[in-house]
């Protein structure tokens, strides 16, 4: 038992670094920041937080695949490491949006909470028992609730946080109930043991209820219809960098967690990937339905949005359908396409929020019309925005196109149109054509429309512009050389 502590300590080192950094940030702000200007306190906190994230990233990279640790509680396999690096990077970009953004009070606590949320994501990426899955989810969620409501001056922020919290709380309760049933059915909380029992003992009606409850939580976390309702309100009301974190890193971690839970834990109840033998059934069918609903709903409603953030939220719901599809396909081809899709999607989204954060420093950036003339205000921001939006739209050769391509191809490879996933992939292709319409509206506003009043050039901090360019370049490079990510799997 004691021999295990060493391995455990090594495995948890990144988390330890992040927690320590969070505490240092708060302490530093208390001691050093007293009486200093807000801007310098923000910069110091962000810098420290970034250092912690970079250190965590380096440690994760150095350690590599450690296998199972903590008596099988965590499984640091390849996917876990990839996702952990991914969420740390995305959290870093979210943190950087704070630099350009309209700065808020008590930056140290904000940064600390963001780091705590990242710890939660790290747990989610590696959890291999129901207990750690639940705890990781709750740690991330609780931090995100507070981050969403962090702006105490705006009622929208509080409202968004409360809605996020309420749906999250109900989903967590439902998930816990489902977990308790799984424990009762299998007598165990480890994914692998659950899977072993489920293979030999069909779980029956109680199992169906338990799986359904897990799916509710999955729908909530990834914003898949019909459990998506929180998303538009939260995207709109939450502070920009919180929304960025919720839209990117949180989603990637959620996808990883539920991939592991659903396939390596509840795999026997999936109804089988190859349905040709047994006919459709199990949760694969239900996830396919949810994915189709998301694709339809997200993309159609996004067409009607005038508010930029709500538009992003509905487009995110559409993409959640794509992620759910990737989750299905992962049973056949492994999690590679899913991870690629989620990671590049997160990068593009966090980039767009970065652009929004920079824009709203000087003017409001709420409706689409507020983007008018962005290319005059800052060609750099407008160019980066174009890359991010086109990537989301799936225009080759950006990473977004490739993400869609691998996921759709994987979904069709299961059994062509003989499998529900094939039909959903077809729908996703159609919807990606529809989505182009509203993405182009965004770009038209930013690039073509001339605003009524002559715009002023906006000041873009060097760090923020570097971050934007890095994210945009990442999307281009990953799109042209997808094997950088896919070759890993």
């Amino acid at each position, binding site marked *: 038992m004691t021999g295990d502590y060493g391995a455990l300590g090594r495995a948890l080192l990144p988390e330890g670094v992040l927690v320590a950094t969070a505490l240092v940030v708060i302490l530093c702000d208390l001691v050093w920041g007293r009486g200093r200007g807000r801007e310098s306190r923000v910069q110091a906190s962000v810098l420290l937080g970034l250092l912690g994230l970079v250190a965590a990233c380096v440690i994760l990279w150095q350690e590599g695949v450690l296998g199972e640790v903590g008596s099988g509680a965590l499984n640091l396999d390849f996917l876990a490491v990839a996702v952990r690096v991914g969420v740390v990077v995305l959290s870093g970009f979210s943190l950087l949006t704070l630099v350009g953004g309209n700065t808020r009070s008590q930056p140290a606590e904000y940064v600390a909470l963001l780091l705590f949320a990242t710890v939660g994501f790290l747990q989610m990426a590696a959890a291999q028992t129901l207990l750690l899955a639940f705890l990781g989810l709750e740690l991330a969620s609780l931090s995100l609730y507070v981050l969403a409501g962090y702006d105490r001056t705006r009622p929208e922020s509080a409202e968004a946080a409360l809605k996020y919290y309420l749906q999250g709380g109900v*989903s967590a309760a*439902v998930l816990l109930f489902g977990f308790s049933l799984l424990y009762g059915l299998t007598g165990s909380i480890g994914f692998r043991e659950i899977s072993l029992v489920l293979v030999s003992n069909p779980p*029956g009606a109680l199992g169906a209820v338990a799986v359904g409850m897990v799916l509710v939580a999955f729908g909530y976390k990834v914003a898949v219809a019909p459990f998506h309702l929180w998303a538009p309100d939260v995207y709109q009301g939450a502070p920009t960098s919180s929304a960025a974190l919720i839209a990117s890193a949180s989603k990637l971690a959620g996808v990883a967690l539920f991939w592991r839970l659903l396939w390596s834990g509840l795999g026997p109840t999936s109804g089988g990937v190859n349905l040709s033998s047994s006919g459709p059934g*199990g949760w694969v069918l*239900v996830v396919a339905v949810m994915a189709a609903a998301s694709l339809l709903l997200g993309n*159609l409603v996004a067409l009607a949005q005038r508010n930029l953030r709500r538009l992003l939220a509905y487009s995110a719901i559409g993409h959640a359908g794509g992620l759910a599809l990737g989750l299905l396909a992962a049973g056949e081809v492994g999690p590679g396409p899913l991870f690629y899709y989620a990671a590049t999607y997160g990068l593009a989204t966090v980039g767009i929020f970065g652009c929004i954060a920079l824009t709203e420093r000087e003017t409001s950036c709420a409706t689409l019309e507020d983007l008018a003339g962005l290319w005059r205000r800052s060609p750099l921001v407008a160019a980066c925005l174009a890359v991010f939006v086109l990537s989301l739209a799936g225009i080759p050769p950006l990473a977004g196109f490739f993400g869609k391509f691998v996921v759709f191809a994987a979904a069709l490879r299961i059994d062509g149109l003989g499998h529900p996933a094939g039909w959903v992939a077809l729908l996703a292709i159609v919807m990606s054509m529809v989505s182009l319409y509203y993405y182009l509206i965004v770009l038209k506003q930013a690039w073509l429309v001339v605003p009524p009043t002559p715009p002023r050039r906006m000041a873009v901090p060097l760090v923020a512009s570097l971050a934007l360019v890095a994210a945009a370049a990442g999307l281009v490079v990953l799109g042209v050389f997808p094997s950088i990510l896919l070759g890993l799997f």
Partner: protein
Amino acid sequence: MTLSASLLWLIPATPLAASVFGLFAPRTARTLPIAGALLGLVAALGLSVAALAGALVDPAVRATSDFAWFTFGAQTLRLGWLLDPLAGFMCVLVTLIGLLVALFSTAYLRHDPRIGRFFGFLSLFVAAMLGLLVTNSLLLLFICWELVGLASYLLIGFWYERPAAAAAAKKAFITTRIGDLGFLIGLVWLHQATGSALFHDGGAGALDAPTLARLSSTLLPGGWAVSTAIGLLLFVGAAGKSGQFPLHVWLPDAMEGPTPVSALIHAATMVAAGVFLMARVFPLMAADQGLATVPFHALTGVAVIGAVTALLGAVLAVAQNDIKRVLAYSTVSQLGYMMLAIGVGSWVAAVFHLITHAFFKALLFLGAGSVIDATHHEQDLRRLGGLAGRMRVTFATFALGTGALMGLPFVFSGFWSKEAILHAAEGWTVSHLPFAAGLVGVVLTAFYMTRLVLEVFFGKARGEGAAHAEESPGLMRGPLVVLAVAAVGLGWLGLPNWPWLQTRLQGGDWPVHGLGEGFGLMVVSTALVLLGIGAGWWWYGRVKRTDARALDPLARSWPAVHAALAGRLWLDELYAATVGRAFAMLARVAAFFDRWVWGGAVEAAGRTAETVGQVNRAVDEDGLNAGFDNTSEHLRGSGRRYAKAQTGDAQSYLRVVAIGLAVVGVLLLWGGVR
């Protein structure tokens, strides 16, 4: 000097570098991007000629060079380059016409402040098209295809200050996306069915014989072969790009871009992509030909659509009053001829016509650009006139181009390529209707082009612009002369008794039919051309138009026919009424289900009546007079209706979660969690 297949990527890479350079050059430097673009095009032309020379050494051999793009698990996705005479000829064509258009543009856009950006887009356009030509992979072809679409969007909407230009750009993009949808589905299907993204891969590629045999022998429900279905899906994509009925609506509106762009789009780049795609995947399209049991052959569909388009485009060109619109509908018609040729099995004739058409249509568009430039942007036929004396070079070259387009016998290139198509159509065993449509199209083509020339260049000037027109500068005349020479001379490369071009493209012997065999057909088609010219002269030549406001002579004779043609047969309106309506209905049905699930039984009951009312209202209100944009507006409207479900009330969200849990649970129980 020849270019090996492994270096083919250099051909698109040079204009691409020029476009990056042009787009990122400082806005004050006007000449730098132009020089860069010209340099890139010259280099690409040189490389293309070298590539063609290499391909012609032994036309039967396909040189491929593949590389692994990425490896994922046990799977490797390979892309590659392919050099055969088809690709070689097309590359030379695209770069040559691109270069001439670019030269013309330096003069045409000399006053535009954003000329640097224009040349950046132009280079991107050409680069994407070249990439599409030299690739050995349908996936890479699709990527370039999308880039062509994006670049055309940027170029058509180049003068975005004009709302019509912005709308046209959007229309072009969206309409071709409808086609691309078919392409993408076909691509994914083909990839799934063959496991390869390559065309030719030593027997394992999608176009290699063993694969094709497998595809055509796999049958779908209803007896269709898989290859038929995939082929038709790919054709939908080609139809969108190449302006085939019913996806042709974007092409005439694309006139809103600068005229050199129109020349490029109509001649060598955008619309040629669809025909090229069909020629490239021809083995796949023809794979089901040998099967007697298949209820429908892919090529039959291509032939029918091509014939309809050829006829429709010619008919619609008759009553247009915008010089560029006439030419645009003529492009639609000529593209129809090319598809018709492919449909009847003669892709070589289609490519032959593609090449000759590219030159004379570029000539006609640039000639129109020259007229428009000289008359200070006057495009209305009724306000032009009498330019023959003032713009001699433009007139002479335009007349040569007209002769080629009409297919005046023996001298002009268009005659020979059109003859090849008609000959192939005549020999088609399935039906003679396409052949008949082609013959009718010949009359109409001669008619509307006669009208165009008479109205623009003869009679007396009927507008301010035309009255004071002067010949265009040398930089504009030069390309016109070069194109005119090609418009006349190129036809001699593919004479019926000396089919040099055909044998090279085919990579083998092309059935020589002496002048004697096809002579009857030639006499008929010549007679038809003369008939068309005569009719044109009858209406527009005998009595010259004197006043811009005078009623069109044709409208005087047959008012109903003219009104229908001028209204473009109300096709746009038909779309709004059918496609738009269908979307709206779909959305409403979806909204109904949506509400039912969301709100629970209690809320649904109250709202059923409301939904029924909405459907009712939609049927009542949306008349037939709505425009194209209604389709997208309907979609947005459905989105707005969905959005109302998001009431903002947190408890209604939670209710949805609860109902969702119940539904998911029931679905799982029904599906049977074992």
